């Protein structure tokens, strides 16, 4: 993979998928697009990283200062300690009023609800079999709702002005009460339909009912009280059913934020485990997960842009809302996704693992020497060699390499070996599906099984 000369430069330009050396940034990108075009998102993340890096570097030629700040700031911590070591402070007193509130509100609402329901039933009746002739309409209406006798009412109940020739009495078509023309409200037939039937679609010009409804004056006269009740109902219906596009986009956005959270934690876990020299996760795992996170970041960015692009009036609250959401998304990406620690270099990891192996071997060597000395001391040498120790060394070596050494023995029909192979299969599957939690448990099982296998083969000998 690496040629020995100037390998330090080439490290950075290795294709993460086929591991071929591409010498230059441009050729690497080219190679990526040519050979691995199916990994589109990875290419994109790759590019983004370079794009951002280029931009930042051109604007500002100082780098890696945050570490300096950290180190210079840290010593101060001890010199001005926090005030008293914080005990786990509980939230202060909270007094709940909702019980009393609902006790007042709900009976009232129920009363309104029954009243509104009554009105809606009447409205429904008024609208069914509604005749076309104005004269007939009046009859039809009076038939359904008994009108109050106009002689009993001297003044308009809402504005308290007396009725005479030019200020004539009118009746609310729904409750039958009297009012003057100025105090009357009108509900269009179209609106009325949508009130009695929430799923009613506003009529299209070519629909069959349209012929009846086309008359401009065709609407229902009603008093402000009834209108208020009906409008309230309509609003409640609307607010329940209306889901503007921004709402749906936002839901998607939050879902991705939620989904990516465990990935972020997992990624850090993998990186630390790699640096610790553990072999549970591989470099490719880290790379794949990083790609996935990068992909989520892109989607987040895209969704928040879409939200920002929703149509709205200039200077409106809606516009402010869209801007805020976009801002929050950018901040989230910046703080949680762009600050991921980099993937360690393969050589580095190899070095760490090698170091662990050497340490392990040294320990075994030391133990063996001690044992040897003990044997010699008690004059027991020659009785038994130490095949066990050499074997341990071997298995420890292979364990770092995912126990590849044992694969040769797959054709034995030992149930343990079979089990081991099955688990290996599972690990491969889990890895393909990026279920890293599972990998960890499976690896654990695997090493237990292998240990068992080793013990048994030990006994046989």
């Amino acid at each position, binding site marked *: 993979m690496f040629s020995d000369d100037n390998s330090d430069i080439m490290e950075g330009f290795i294709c993460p998928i086929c591991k071929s050396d591409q010498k230059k940034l441009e050729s690497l990108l080219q190679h990526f697009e040519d050979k691995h075009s199916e990994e589109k998102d990875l290419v994109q993340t790759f590019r983004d990283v370079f794009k951002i890096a280029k931009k930042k570097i051109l604007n500002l030629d100082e780098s890696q200062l945050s570490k300096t*700040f950290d180190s210079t700031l840290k010593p101060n911590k001890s010199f001005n300690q926090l*005030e008293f070591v914080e005990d786990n*402070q509980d939230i*202060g007193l909270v*007094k709940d*009023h*909702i019980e009393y509130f609902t006790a007042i509100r709900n009976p009232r609402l129920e009363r309104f609800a029954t009243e509104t329901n009554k009105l809606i039933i009447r409205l429904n009746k008024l609208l069914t079999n509604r005749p076309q002739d104005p004269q007939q309409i009046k009859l039809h209406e009076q038939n359904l709702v008994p009108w109050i006798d106009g002689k009993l009412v001297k003044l308009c109940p809402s504005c308290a002005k007396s009725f005479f020739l030019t200020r004539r009495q009118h009746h609310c078509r729904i409750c039958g009460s009297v009012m003057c023309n100025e105090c009357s409200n009108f509900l269009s037939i179209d609106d009325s339909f949508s009130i009695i039937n929430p799923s009613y679609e506003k009529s299209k010009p070519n629909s069959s009912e349209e012929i009846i409804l086309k008359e401009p004056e065709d609407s229902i006269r009603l008093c402000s009280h009834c209108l208020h009740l009906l409008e309230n109902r309509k609003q409640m219906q609307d607010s329940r059913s209306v889901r503007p596009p921004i709402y749906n986009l936002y839901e998607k956005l939050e879902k991705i934020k939620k989904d990516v959270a465990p990935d972020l934690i997992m990624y850090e876990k993998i990186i630390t485990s790699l640096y610790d020299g553990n072999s549970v996760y591989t470099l490719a795992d880290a790379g794949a997960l990083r790609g996935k996170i990068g992909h989520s970041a892109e989607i987040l960015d895209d969704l928040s842009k879409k939200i920002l692009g929703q149509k709205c009036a200039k200077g409106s609250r809606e516009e402010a809302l869209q801007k*805020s959401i976009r801002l929050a998304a950018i901040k989230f990406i910046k703080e949680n996704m762009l600050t991921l620690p*980099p993937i360690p270099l393969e050589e580095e990891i190899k070095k760490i693992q090698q170091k662990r192996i050497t340490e392990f071997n040294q320990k075994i060597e030391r133990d063996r020497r001690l044992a040897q000395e003990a044997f010699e001391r008690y004059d027991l040498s020659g009785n038994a060699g130490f095949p066990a120790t050499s074997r341990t060394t071997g298995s420890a070596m292979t364990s770092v390499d995912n126990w590849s050494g044992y694969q040769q023995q797959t054709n034995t029909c030992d149930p343990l070996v079979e089990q081991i192979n099955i688990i290996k299969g599972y690990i491969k599957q889990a890895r393909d599906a990026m279920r890293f939690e599972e990998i960890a448990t499976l690896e654990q099982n695997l090493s237990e099984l292998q240990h068992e296998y080793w013990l048994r083969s030990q006994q046989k000998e």
Partner: protein
Amino acid sequence: MNVIKAIQLYIDKMIEEAGPGMKILLMDRETTSIISMAHSQTDMLQKEVYLFERIDSGRSNERLKYLKCIVFIRPTRDNIIRLSNELKSPKYGSYFIYFSNIIPRTEIKALAECDESESVREVKEMYADYLCINSSLFSLNIPTCLHSLNWQQEALERTVSGIIGVLLSLKIRPTIRYKNGSQPAQNLAKRVFDTINKESSLFSFKPPENGVPPPLLLILDRRDDPITALLTQWTYQAMVHQLLTIKNNRVDLSNVVGVPNELKEVVLSAEQDDFYSKNLFSNFGEIAVTIRDLIESFQKRAKEQKKIETIADMKNFVESYPQFKKMSGTVNKHLVVISELSMQISKKSLLEMSELEQDMACRADHSAQLQRVKKLITEERISIEDALRLILIYAMRYERHANCGTVGLLNALKARNGRTHLVPKMLEYISQSARNELFNTTKIDAVKLTRNLIKGLKGVENVYTQHVCVLKDLLEEILKGRSIDQQYPFISSEVPYRRPPTEIIVFIIGGATYEEAFAVHQLNQMGYRIILGGTTIHNSESFLEEVITATNGAPFKHSRSLQAFHNASNA
């Protein structure tokens, strides 16, 4: 006992109860500042609170039914009416209503009757009714609270609810002491005591274990320690307030020459700014060294790291960039603030000023001090405000001295067109006990004498910070378990505890100062649990405003000899 934490817990709870989804926060003028002291706007964005609206100013009629609305307001009459109107024609999908203090049941009923569309989900009282400044410092943002040396009614009401808020948010039912002889302190103590008894169901906390003394609420009066509010300050937070004025954690730098646009107004919050919170109480020398080191290493690194060659370099850079940006922003901000402070110090000769102030505050040496004051106040480099401060300190200190030279000094100030009328006002403002104890040069107090003697033997560590505020001495007395019953009696007949209280809330009528906050902080670092609050937090300028309003309408009793200077018009 951390007041910032207390407010944050309340806000987080409100947001949590509203659940996931886009949210708007509806507040009034005061709750807006309360929230802004505890959380930054970006914090709120991360909690899905995207819009902020004031209930008491011009509101648009736009309906956004897909938003959840968190209402956090003070339970005032006006607010309830506004909220009722909002509920009658709701603009948002659902409402989560929180009041910052105790609300009468009748108001709840009125609101319930307006909720015809069933959009209210929660109605609660959460007692975040004060502004948290530091973890152990709060304010009520009442710029002036007295008139004719007694409470302004509105200020008293606000103060009572503010203190009740602090107690309930920390779940404390205290015993109450007040400064004997101060009418405002006694009134306030009585009102708080009555409220606690009236709302005993709220204050039904688990009583302290046997033998553990209950927490103490100590109500003091600024008039007993006017000196502290006048001295030049040398710790970071106090200096910034004295020289640049902090208002709701914000500092206006628009008058500073050569400040970049984004730093015209900076936020100094102990909660959001690490550098600030670490250096709140550092003195100016320390902080100058800290920031210089920071900049030196900054520059060194910048030179070293100019070349980015490998991809690894690039990646590292990109990854540490956001952090770097944040950090450099902070440092930049403090650099501007600190250089402005340092500029003012040299321009106004504040070191020289401070030395004389401290000398007068701590040591009686009349003739020498008078000569120095006389010399300084006529010099051009001493600003007219600073000259006034010197005269004020001198006039209080030597009010009854046989050779008192106040009139002469005032004539000199008058020649410079200074606000001479403030001196007689100040003499009317200070309390009898300040006269008798703080500035007494004739009567000799045995305890104080020995203490001063010991101090003299130890030598003064720092000339500019030798003054000790009355509060610190008092708290030390209390914590040592000395009896203070004579000067600070209980409001009710309490059985006095032998052991000193472990938790103390101090409230200063007429405003606390950052110097006192520092004193409290020092004690807290020793393991005590003390919280300081005031009607406001003063610097010398705002304190003088307080003095003018407080003495308005009060007759001149103590300053008849200064009659020529009683009116502002002759300045």
